[in-house]
């Protein structure tokens, strides 16, 4: 039994550290979406499928 191997008096859990560990704050910095031209799938598709620009004559 656990209580036979560990006596409560032998262990002191630091209340401050415990409280801090139990407090899970949100991420301090946001990683919300911003303009990302590389994420413009439509543009890429058009580039793949559309004809090359004609050479100047």
């Amino acid at each position: 039994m656990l209580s036979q191997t560990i006596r409560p008096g032998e262990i002191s859990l630091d209340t401050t550290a415990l409280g801090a560990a139990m407090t899970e704050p949100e991420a301090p910095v946001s990683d919300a979406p911003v303009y990302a031209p590389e994420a413009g799938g439509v543009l890429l598709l058009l580039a793949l499928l559309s004809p090359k620009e004609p050479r100047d004559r």
Partner: protein
Amino acid sequence: MAISVTQHAHLLASRALGWLHTHRERGALPPGCTAELAEPDTVYKPLGETGLAASLVLREAVAGSTELRLARELLDFGWKQLGGGSMLHERLLRYPMMSDPLETYAHYARCGYRHEPLELLLRHTTSLHSTRAAEVLPNRRLAVANAARISGFDRGEDGDEGPRTGSTGGTDWAGLTAATWLGALPEPWLIDWLTAYSMTHTVFHITDWGRLPERLPDDIVRHVGRWLPVWIDIWAEIGEWDLVAELLIVDNCLPEPLGDAAVWERLAGIQHEDGLMPRDGHPVTGDDQERFAAHHHSTVVAAVAGTLAVSRTLGTR
């Protein structure tokens, strides 16, 4: 709370309008500019956007006499730059499938600036299936539909039974709306930056920039009402001021705007004293011409946002 929104919104709009007026020459077309317009986004688009902002100031008529005069002078200036409409006419003759002549003309026409040959040509091009069915993003299709509505071109000929327009030839607003991202009533937690702009423009065009809030379908009103505060929150947090201001315009296109005094206060605080509205959190640098290029759009948005918010909070619309 509502009074506070009105005050901040009025400050935002009047300062932005002042800046647009002061710097209007920077939006002049370069000498020798032809209808081909090699760089439409930087050269020609600002004239359209300033025209939009000024037209809404006049339409809402909640501004003081000074601001009304500034708006009128901005329209006079823009119309002159557009050759009294002749430049738009030439552009449409050269590129009959392009929608920008219609979209630009609509705001000026709303305020009494007319070009009859352009109108005749527009009446023709807007009636064709080819132009109506041109492959564009759904929110852009709504833009064209609204421009046609403003200008009175949205009625087809009698008996015209086009594939998407119905027997009257009028606009299938429900169909166009259903094709948008917003129309799908999508998960609010999966939205990117470009999609956010698609959403804002969808609302702008369905309601004709807040003139017709009742045209928004009920389920979309509910959807936007639930999630708009989240979108405003996350983008305000990272300083995307242009997008935040557009989201506030969306709010004022709703039948019952939510109003967020804290965000309005924040925007008014970010705006420069001279009325320039920074696009985002990056430092505003460069000479006056560079600043105009970078922050003209966001200042236009601020002018529109503030004007519509004053209208809605005063209950004049």
